[in-house]
């Protein structure tokens, strides 16, 4: 199950195109790399950064402290600057100083800038000293310049005075102050006075001390080392005063340093640098992100490079495998697992396995086939040997039979065992020929098999029954390793001789044939002609071996070209021949088989004549039947003539009639006489016997003529005749009289059929039309009682009639006429609903009508 699914997977994988697979593998490797490297690298990076941060923090702390100390230093210089100012020197020389020195015990407080102080000077940046105190050389404060009243006792400050110019940060009432001591010298007295600047080290101070940098993430603060409470900070909003330093560990990295240079021994202030952890974290995050991006890029490059390399390699291998597989398929005919698309790499193992398997199977097949072929050859040979039409006998050197084939013992009537080991000549050769046979054997030892002495010698052989047979004997000597053997071939030629005799007798078939038989070659030369062809050759005026007249030569050529048998008619003076030209394509001959058809043609001619006479008789009969109607019709004008004439005579006798009247009557007589003449003319066309001939006429005209013939008859019978003639011309090539007679028969039958019907119901429709491009039709429809089914069967039988006076010849003759015209006559009738006769005639629409 798992093997199956794994192979299925493999197959699926193999179908994946190589670039895709390469990409897949590349991406997979990239991801693996990513997964492995990511945590390790991140951790290492974090460690690295942490160390770096700590180092940087130290540096920053030192920097801030140095800036702070530098600021303090500046304050010291401000102090010494003030103490060396000319105003203070001047003041020390003045009397006011000396008076106050001597008299007053209380220090003088100045609200305004005192005269010993440079009004704009005691300032650093925006920081101003809170108090400026001028002390005498006994360290008694003599004059104090203050913006605000002093919040503490001044005396306690003096314990910080060491007698040197120095700046000290001191905590007074838990508030840090900067005390700047500057000795003022006057004349020789080095220590004439001391100038003290008291500056609160507040938030502003701290901020100003760091004003050189804009690092907002770094804060500084002063902390009481004992209580770890914040005394002041550079940013009051973020770091509140009096808070405990430990509170800030969470959000800041702290570094505390002592400012020993600016502190008295007993003071314990710490200078603390706070760096915001957020900022640090952010930096780390930024860097990590950057590192990740770098890593991603690297991975991408890695994937691409890997994919490309993998693809190139595998494509190359795949390509090679495909080529080898194709080669295997084409050259060795062995199947190799090749996928049309996708890669071959995955199939490599299968491929190799299949290759070996097929190699082995191909080897086996080849071996089997060879063995099979060997076997077949053996079988074929033995079959050939046994079933050969020739008797084959193998003799050893002494003429003793070693092997015989089936034909041999069938021919001679012995069994195989009876023959082997015996002398052939004794067993099968006629005593008269034994000598010759022995001589043949001897001769053949030294002669090649093609020598005529060893081949086709006619001999008489004898069978077991003593029957003699003509055979053709051939001998081949076969020189084997140790001995010479003979193959004797005896061919029974008695059948062949019989066949020859038969062929000779067959030739008589043509030569003794009473009908002409000729053979003409492709050039029109008479190759053969039997005796009966003499009249034909007389007609053509040529002999055997001469060329036919051009017309016939062309017919022969076309028959050969088309390869079809055709028949032609030749009308000699006394005979008519039908000649069938039968091409024999492979020999390029045309055989002409003649047939005397004189009698047939004569009979046909007679039959035609008979038919023509029959039609005439038929017509006369029609005439007779129609005579009543005609007589009546003729009576009309004749009576009118008589009446007019009598009227004229009477008028003239009585002298009553006017001349114009008489003339008018005579004109009427003329008209009526013409009318009678017209009727008689029609009669004549109906009766007149025209020679039988085909002419092209318009079928519509034919129908019109017939309609005029039967007009009287139809009137007499009160039959309403309707003509529905097709608009176009319907050319037919017919014998007018005959086709007219057919129609007359049908129309008369129709009129007769309607005698039983009520006078108002008698309708006859004559319809013409084209059925197809090759056929036209005439329909004769009556409204008579129709034809019973039983009668319909016999309609066209001769002497079948339903009429009392009928001969029963009308329809049979009509049918014969239609057949002669290659037309059809058919009837359709439902008993009680009239009958429709249909005449169909062939019509070539391209024929032109004479006179049109």
């Amino acid at each position: 199950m798992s093997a199956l699914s794994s192979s299925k997977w493999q197959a699926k994988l193999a179908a994946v195109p190589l670039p895709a697979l390469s990409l897949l593998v590349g991406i997979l490797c990239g991801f693996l790399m990513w997964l492995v490297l990511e945590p390790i690298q991140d951790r290492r990076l974090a460690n690295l950064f942490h160390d770096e941060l700590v180092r940087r923090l130290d540096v920053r702390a030192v920097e801030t402290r140095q800036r702070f100390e530098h600021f303090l230093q500046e304050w010291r210089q401000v102090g010494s600057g003030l103490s060396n100012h000319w105003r203070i020197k001047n003041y020390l020389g003045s009397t006011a100083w000396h008076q106050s020195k001597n008299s007053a015990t209380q220090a003088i407080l100045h609200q305004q800038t005192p005269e010993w102080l440079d009004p704009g000077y005691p300032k650093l940046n925006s920081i101003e000293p809170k108090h400026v105190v001028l002390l005498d050389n006994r360290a008694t404060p003599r004059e104090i310049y203050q913006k605000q009243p002093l919040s503490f006792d001044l005396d306690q400050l003096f314990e910080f005075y060491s007698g040197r110019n120095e700046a000290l940060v001191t905590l007074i009432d838990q508030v840090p102050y900067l005390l700047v001591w500057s000795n003022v010298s006057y004349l020789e007295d080095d220590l004439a006075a001391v100038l003290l600047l008291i500056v609160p080290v507040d938030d502003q101070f701290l901020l100003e001390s760091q004003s050189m940098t804009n690092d907002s993430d770094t804060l500084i603060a002063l902390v009481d080392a004992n209580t770890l409470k914040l005394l002041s900070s550079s940013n009051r909003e973020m770091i509140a005063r009096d808070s405990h330093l430990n509170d800030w560990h969470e959000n800041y990295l702290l570094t505390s340093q002592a400012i020993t240079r600016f502190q008295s021994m007993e003071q314990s202030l710490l200078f603390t640098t706070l760096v915001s952890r957020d900022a640090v974290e952010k930096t780390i995050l930024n860097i990590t992100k950057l590192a990740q991006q770098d890593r991603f890029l690297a991975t991408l490059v890695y994937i691409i490079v890997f994919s490309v390399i993998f693809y190139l390699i595998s494509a190359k291998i795949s390509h090679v495998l495909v080529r080898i597989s194709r080669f295997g398929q084409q050259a060795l005919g062995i199947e190799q697992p090749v996928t049309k698309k996708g890669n071959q790499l995955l199939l490599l193992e299968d491929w190799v396995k299949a290759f070996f398997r097929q190699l082995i199977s191909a080897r086996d097949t080849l071996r089997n086939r060879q063995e099979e072929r060997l076997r077949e050859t053996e079988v074929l040979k033995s079959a050939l040997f046994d079933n050969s039409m020739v008797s084959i006998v193998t003799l050893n050197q002494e003429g003793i039979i070693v092997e015989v084939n089936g034909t041999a013992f069938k021919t001679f009537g012995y069994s195989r065992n009876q023959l082997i080991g015996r002398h052939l000549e004794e067993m099968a050769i006629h005593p008269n020929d034994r000598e010759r046979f022995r001589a043949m054997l001897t001769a053949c030892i030294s002669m090649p098999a093609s020598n005529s002495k060893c081949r086709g010698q006619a001999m008489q052989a004898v069978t077991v029954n003593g029957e003699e047979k003509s055979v053709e004997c051939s001998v081949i000597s076969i020189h084997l390793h140790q001995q010479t053997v003979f193959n004797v071939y005896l061919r029974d030629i008695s059948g062949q001789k019989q066949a020859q005799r038969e062929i000779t007798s067959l030739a008589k078939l043509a030569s003794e044939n009473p009908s002409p038989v000729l053979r003409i070659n492709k050039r029109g030369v008479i190759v053969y002609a039997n005796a009966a062809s003499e009249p034909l050759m007389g007609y053509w005026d040529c002999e055997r071996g001469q060329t036919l007249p051009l017309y016939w030569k062309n017919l022969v050529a076309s028959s050969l070209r088309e390869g079809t048998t055709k028949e032609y008619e030749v009308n000699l003076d006394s005979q008519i021949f039908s000649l069938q030209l039968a091409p024999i394509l492979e020999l390029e001959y045309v055989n002409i088989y003649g047939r005397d058809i004189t009698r047939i043609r004569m009979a046909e001619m007679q039959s035609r004549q008979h038919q023509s006479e029959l039609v005439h008789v038929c017509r006369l009969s029609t005439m007779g039947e129609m005579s009543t109607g005609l007589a009546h019709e003729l009576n009309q004008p004749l009576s009118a003539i008589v009446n007019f004439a009598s009227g004229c005579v009477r008028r003239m006798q009585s002298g009553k009639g006017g001349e114009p009247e008489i003339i008018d009557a005579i004109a009427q007589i003329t008209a009526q006489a013409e009318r009678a003449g017209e009727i008689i003319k029609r009669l004549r066309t109906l009766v007149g016997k025209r020679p039988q001939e085909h002419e092209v006429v318009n079928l519509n005209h034919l129908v019109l003529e017939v309609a005029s013939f039967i007009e009287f008859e139809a009137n007499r019978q009160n039959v309403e005749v309707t003509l529905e003639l097709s608009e176009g011309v319907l050319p037919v090539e017919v014998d007018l009289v005959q086709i007219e007679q057919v129609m007359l028969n049908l129309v008369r039958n129709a009129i007769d059929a309607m005698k039983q019907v009520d006078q108002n119901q008698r309708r006859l429709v004559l319809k013409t039309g084209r059925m197809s491009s090759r056929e036209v039709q005439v329909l004769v429809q009556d409204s008579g009682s129709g034809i019973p089914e039983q009668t319909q069967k016999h309609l066209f039988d001769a002497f079948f009639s339903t009429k009392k006076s009928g001969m029963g010849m009308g329809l049979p003759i009509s049918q014969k006429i239609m057949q002669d015209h290659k037309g059809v006559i058919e009837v359709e009738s439902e008993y009680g609903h009239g009958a429709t006769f249909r005449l169909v005639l062939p019509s070539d629409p391209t024929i032109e009508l004479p006179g049109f």
Partner: protein
Amino acid sequence: MSNRPTVFVVDDDQAMRNSLKWLIESVSMQVETFESANAFIQSYYPGRSGCLLLDVRMPGMSGLELQEYLQVNQIAIPVIIITGHGDVPMAVRAMKAGAVDFIEKPFNDELLLESIRHAMAVDAKQRDMQSQRAEIATRLARLTPREHEVMLMVTNGKANKEIATSLGVSSKTVEAHRARVMEKMEADSLAELVRMAINANLTLVETPEE
């Protein structure tokens, strides 16, 4: 329209009609022609004197059919049938149906005209008879029932006495009735009275013999 005797010619052939008209007019008779039986029926009204010259074979209503129609409608115009050659069976049928004559085409003019004259005479006679009958009928109408009875008996050859007995009156009374009948009927003689009675198809109501 004058009631001159007219020859009515019915034939579907125009030449035939024209020639007949021409021939008959030559003897100064009035001729009217019709191309079909229907045309004739539509224009003819009873009472017109004359005769009918009828072609037996015509499309539509044939000659025989027209004859039948005339009979059914009690139009007693004499009919001469014209037939074609060999239509003898048809002619026989026509004669049986009461035609006065039949003539075969083509006509002998004398024969035709003679036939027409004859037919005209028949017609005249018929008309005369008819007018007489009408006269007698008006006279009969003037008789009282008793006089009618007396007349019947008289014309049946009853003697006055017999009449008196059967009517139960005196001979004198019968005499008187008889004289009045003669007067009313405008009869000059008994023979005339009898003729009138026959003409009027009066039949005697037979009284049982005593």
